């Protein structure tokens, strides 16, 4: 058993997907998350067992809306989507073959079939089709193969591949929520990267896959779709760098106690039996880099926030920075009140804090 398998224990691994790979870029300094994801640990279940459940519920209204929107786009052989792609990519009218790869059952068979079709398309074989629905791509992440499922890959006739991402958030008067667009762009960049590597391995020019992805969203307050090209070059360079750094996880894991495990010891009734204290202690052995932004991004965030109590980082990066980098709340206050003398590397911070404390007391008295 590898170290990572020991960490996960008996549970089936949670596999990476485009969303979790994208998460590698949201807090790449966090070792805890990196190790947990690499080991395929079910963070949601772990967090819940230790008493800090994540709150990432999804409303059925949102799910329904997303499904309806995608189904509407893909109805009749992607008729509506094709109309949009013709506009935004100048696809010729005639070239509108459609391949639904979702119907292929077995994962590897589907990946092979996807690969075969896509490389055939790269050969310029017109029969290979124009639209590939739910192809299955593989990407190596930290030494493991991960399966990825883009919404769609479009092949521009005689030209480039475009990844198409369908999202149900609205584009209103040409604008959309920048955070949501950013997340969609990162996810699409994962697909672009996987597709480029697939082509490169098969001996093709990876540049055949465009760095512009097609984002399809509902327009204004309607169900009518609108397509926008999004340039994901910056996302690609960040992703490539973070994937290249995955090797560092081995170094982190190697430094952990060999007996460390997050196996929940689920009993026959499906109830985790491992004592919470053991798991909490185990998590404590892997450094986290908590910041309040984690609350929106990571299943372990509430646990980490609890653990980070009393640290200035828990109040936000800018707070810690304004406090001169002093990392603990109580120490910052002691320096501000002059109760403890500053260490040599704290002299400037302490001076500033004392001045700030003086100003506050002067103005509030």
């Amino acid at each position: 058993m590898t170290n990572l398998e020991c960490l996960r224990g008996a549970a089936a691994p949670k596999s990476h997907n485009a969303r979790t790979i994208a998460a590698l870029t949201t807090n790449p300094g966090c070792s805890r998350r990196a190790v947990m994801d690499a080991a395929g640990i079910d963070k949601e279940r772990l967090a819940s067992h230790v008493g800090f459940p994540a709150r990432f519920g999804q409303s059925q209204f949102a799910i329904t809306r997303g499904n309806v929107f995608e189904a509407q786009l893909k109805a009749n052989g992607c008729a509506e989507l094709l109309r949009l792609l013709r506009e935004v990519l100048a696809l010729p009218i005639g070239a509108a073959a459609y391949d639904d790869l979702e119907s292929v059952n077995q994962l590897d068979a589907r990946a092979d079939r996807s690969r075969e079709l896509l490389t055939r398309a790269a050969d310029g074989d017109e029969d290979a089709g124009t639209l590939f629905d739910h192809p299955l791509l593989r990407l190596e992440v930290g030494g493991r193969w991960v399966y990825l499922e883009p919404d769609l890959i479009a092949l521009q006739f005689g030209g480039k591949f475009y990844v198409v991402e369908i999202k149900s958030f609205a584009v209103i008067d040409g604008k959309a929520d920048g955070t949501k667009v950013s997340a969609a762009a990162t996810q699409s960049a994962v697909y672009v990267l996987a597709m480029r590597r697939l082509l490169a391995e098969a001996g093709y020019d990876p540049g055949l896959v465009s760095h512009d992805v097609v984002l399809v969203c509902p327009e204004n307050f309607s169900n009518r779709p609108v397509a926008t090209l999004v340039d994901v070059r910056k996302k690609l360079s960040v992703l490539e760098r973070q994937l290249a750094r995955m090797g560092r996880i081995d170094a982190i894991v190697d430094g952990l106690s060999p007996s460390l495990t997050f196996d929940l010891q689920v009993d026959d009734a499906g109830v985790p039996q491992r004592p919470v204290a053991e798991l909490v202690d185990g998590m404590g052995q892997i450094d986290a880099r908590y910041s309040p932004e984690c609350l929106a991004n990571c299943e372990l965030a509430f646990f980490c926030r609890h653990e980070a109590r009393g640290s200035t980082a828990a109040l936000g990066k800018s707070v810690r920075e304004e406090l001169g980098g002093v990392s603990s709340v109580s120490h910052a206050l002691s320096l501000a009140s002059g109760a403890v003398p500053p260490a040599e590397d704290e002299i400037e911070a302490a001076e500033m804090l004392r001045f700030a404390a003086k100003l506050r007391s002067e103005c509030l008295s």
Partner: protein
Amino acid sequence: MSDVLPAVLADLTSGLHRGVVVDSPPGAGKSTLVVRATSSMVSSGQLPLMIVAQTNEQVDDLIARLVPALPPGVGIGRLSAQGYVAPPRVAQHASVTVGSKVADLGPALIVIGTAAKWATLSEGQWPWAIVDEAYQMRSDMLLRIANRFDKALFVGDPGQLDPFSVVESERWTGLTWDPMQSAVAVLLRHNPDLPVHRLPVSWRLPYSAAPVVSQAFYPFAEFTSGTGEGDRRLSLSTSGVGGGAVDAAVEMAAATGWALYELPSQHTLRTDAEAAAACAALAQRVVERGAVAYSEVAPDGAPVTEARVAIGAAHRDQVAAIRSYLPESSEITVDTANRLQGREYDVTIVLHPLSGRRDATAFHLESGRLCVLASRHRHACIVVARAGIPELLDAHPSTEPVHLNVPVKFPDGWEANQAIMAHLHGHRVRDSG
């Protein structure tokens, strides 16, 4: 190498385009181009001509360079705000008339002023214009002055700092006329067919710096140095005493054109005293060591005096901190990146914007800031930083919002910073503290 000016002027006078853009990397002869373009337009009768710069200092510098280059008798009108007093370099020329209204400028065929001053005019039309430092100008300023001219030459450095606003608003994102964008960005989005020329050679940056700066900050507009390997040399007349890290860094910079003076890793206040002191010490040591700069302009060598050394930092409080370590009489320039734009020295010391930081912010990652700081030197650049910047960059979350229909801007600050740090790694001198 090719002279782009004839092609630029040919495009401008072809009648096919209302504007021409010339991108100029650091030290590529932008001012020279503006002066030559002006005298060429004067001699071929493309007059009257309006010239726009962004600050009063830029306007005055330009006048000082223009007058000797123009045929005698060509009058220059210096449009200025009330209360402006012309500095000697402007006032000494009889052909320059200063006035706050166009009517006060007499029959001047060339009228020059800041964009802000031009924007106060509500009438008048010049057939020709030159807009200098056009990337430093916000597009709303261009909107206010563009009706004053028919055809214009826009000149500037795309790698420098973008204009900014104190107002944070996403109200206009994605609009082609977003007033927060630079003038050139908006100009080109509305007129994508305008010819864009590039000055291909940096006369300022030495052979050791041009490729580094070009690759990191101008990925799609490569340039080279005008001087070749070994054409510029920095020699130190005296040897260092004790051989400390400061001397080692100065020697490294003299030998290779670059040095990274690395302080022990520590999270500090912006005004990191140790780093500020190191900046001051390095700058002084360059002068104390009797550095002599040998170059195409001074083949027999010219001493690197205090006036030829500058220290650059990201924040004003850092500038104040560094200054406090220099004697009051020192002529070493200490300033922020914003204010160092357009200036040139033999040797520069740069306090790295990310030094001592725990987290990077968009401000600190802005590629233009590092670009300005790393491209002011003719001979050598010494970067002062706490250890740990590459790790900080690797840990930086990539979560900035992405807006639809906003062209991606290159270079990306994160990537440019990675590239510069990778280069500096080979020029590292450690201060063990």
